[in-house]
């Protein structure tokens, strides 16, 4: 289903937030301002809420934190409309295949095992996400890529440096490189991903480069171009989606790459 169809299906294009009545536009906001608690601070909080488009803004809670900070909770009506037609979503633009179908397609069309190299790069040591995708155990009742007979999976684990990753991709003749990034403080995930894609661009000519895929719970899936990767997977990804995408991008629709 494309975004347009989805919009049409819903039968309406413009909506507002819903508190308890259609169109009431109600939202909840909380934040801290670096000012001591007094009336002026409360006024400042209302000002911020107004700038966010909340009007009238009900300041319902203000609590001093330490010396120079105040925490606020604001409720109110936001004036923005949400235009569903303008929503840009990375919809799944490839068919979801079963493990059997994935294996069959790789075997028939590629005629060799598809090589996948995975890692958590940088100083990130959160392997649970990439393991969920790669290890046999899988997640949410789906087996991971290791379970697919026609995929050859090399999982490098955590805290892999970018040069190590590039080298492993070369050695394993990787068709695809799967990188996980979970720590996002100070945009660590973005920095690391950019460093990774730059390294591959530098190390290999365009045609020889493996498909670059990153995943993690806080990515914006629309940022592929900005990050120089082929695809981004977010919260709640399942191995089946990843396998289907691999087949789509590397086997059935090579130009997609």
């Amino acid at each position, binding site marked *: 289903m494309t975004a347009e169809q989805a919009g049409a299906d819903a039968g309406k294009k413009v909506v507002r937030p819903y508190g*308890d009545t259609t169109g009431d536009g*109600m939202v909840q906001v909380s934040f801290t301002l670096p000012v001591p608690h007094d009336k002026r601070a409360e006024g400042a909080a209302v000002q911020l809420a107004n700038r966010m488009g909340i009007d009238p803004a009900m300041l*319902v809670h203000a*609590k001093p934190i330490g010396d120079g900070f105040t925490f606020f*909770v604001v*409720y109110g009506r936001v004036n923005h409309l949400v235009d569903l037609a303008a929503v840009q979503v990375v919809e799944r633009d490839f068919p979801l295949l079963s493990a059997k179908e994935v294996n069959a397609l790789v075997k028939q069309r590629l005629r060799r095992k598809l090589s996948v190299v995975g890692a958590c790069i940088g100083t990130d040591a959160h392997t649970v996400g990439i393991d969920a995708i790669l290890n046999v155990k899988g997640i949410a009742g789906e087996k991971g890529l290791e379970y697919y007979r026609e995929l050859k999976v090399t999982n490098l684990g955590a805290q892999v440096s970018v040069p190590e990753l590039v080298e492993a991709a070369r050695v394993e003749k990787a068709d695809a490189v799967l990188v996980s990034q979970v720590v996002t403080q100070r945009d660590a995930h973005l920095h690391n991903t950019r460093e990774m894609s730059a390294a591959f661009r530098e190390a290999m000519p365009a045609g020889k480069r493996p498909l670059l895929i990153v995943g993690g719970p806080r990515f914006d899936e629309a940022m592929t171009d900005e990050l120089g990767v082929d695809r981004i997977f977010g919260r709640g990804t399942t191995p089946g989606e990843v396998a289907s995408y691999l087949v789509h991008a590397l086997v059935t629709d090579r130009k997609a790459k």
Partner: protein
Amino acid sequence: MLRLAGVSGADPDGIPWVNRLVDAVVAEVGLGHGVALPVFDALAREGMTDVTLLAQKAAAGSVRFAVPSGRAATAARKAARQSVGAGIRRIDRRRVERDRLVKRFGDPKQRPWIYLIVATGDIYEDIPQAQAAARAGADVIAVIRSTGQSLLDYVPEGATREGFAGTYATQENFRLMRAALDQSSKELGRYVRLTNYASGLCMPEMAALAGLERLDMMLNDSMYGILFRDINPIRTFVDQRFSRQVHARAGIIINTGEDNYLTTADAVDEAHTVTVSQLLNEYFAHEAGLADAQLGLGHAFEINPEVPESFRLELAHALLARELFPDAPLKWMPPTKHMTGDVFRGNLLDGFFNLVGTMTGQGILLVGMMTEAVVTPWLSDRDIALQNVRYVLNAAGGLHEDFVPAPGGFIQQRANRVLSEAVDLLERIGDQSLLTAIAEGTFGIMKRPADRGKGLAGVAAHEDGYFNPATEILEAPGVRGMSERVPQSRPEEVQP
């Protein structure tokens, strides 16, 4: 009573014909004999059968009323009995219907039942919200009515889309919501109950309409109107009796309003007034023919959370109620007074409230909302609140097995103290009278003298020959017995 006789509809100004009729009767013959005799006498004289038509004529000033005597009186009494009896049979049928549906769809699997309010102020917004709540796990839906309704001396007509903090309770709104919840019950395989208010100046009418539209519970307190709506005490005691007789007949569970006291009085200092009020509500309820299983006696988690050991004090109070009324489906009310705009803290307090509910085996749990101090609940507030309840009941539903108040410890001592304060207060009330105690501000620190308050005009002493066919039927022997026999509304116990 006239509602039971089938009077419905309203004049072009929205004043129901029932009210126009009563006004006409009172203007001519007063209220002392009841309205049944003059009305059915006039009906016979006019050669009519439809009381609503009579009301319309009376409103136009084209009917005369008198208190009949002799054969005319006997005939009027008979007609009245027949007409009202038909209404009561409709209530009986709705009760059988409820029992059938409960049997088909089933009761909630867990105790306490999960009770949720909707309060959008528009019945057509309330309906989807109620259905969403049911789907998310609510066992009982209470539709909140508009702020002003309790002081209206009539029940508005038709489906309504207005009101503040709730929309009006009307027969049509009752019908619409009950139908929607029947649909949800079917979808969910669990009978979803519906609640409204038999409270305020129209307490008896509300009770009748609830019975007619198969509502399942009603807020109905023997003193709430007095204390929180400044309604005349005598009127309230009379009205609550009649309304409870109707509830008894309809198999409706009443919810009493002790929680309200703790919004104005301190929940620690005045804990015993809750106990006393529960005992009074129980007494009046039994007297009106309600069975223990119909007594949703109220109490609440309203202790200031800053008080040391506040959670254990709440446990003590909740356990005391549980032990005093072992067969009543106690209604456990969430924190409201000490809720603030800090919604994160609010959701936490609600969780501990839920925990007390399950640890002490409460019957009905009114789900607390994190936005209690902010707005009437949003759709999402209700969802978050239900998730909270589900977590607590699922994760700690069996904790009561391991909860054994230390003998002679903090919890037992506290419960004993509240109980003995309650006994002292009851003795003081016994020495004076309940009306005096209320006048002196014993409950919810509200002072309400017996000769003041709203609706005083509607209070009249019974005169000789006073006749109310509804009370007569409801008080007939056997009926009381029936309600005694329906403690859990189990289908097999229903009278044929």
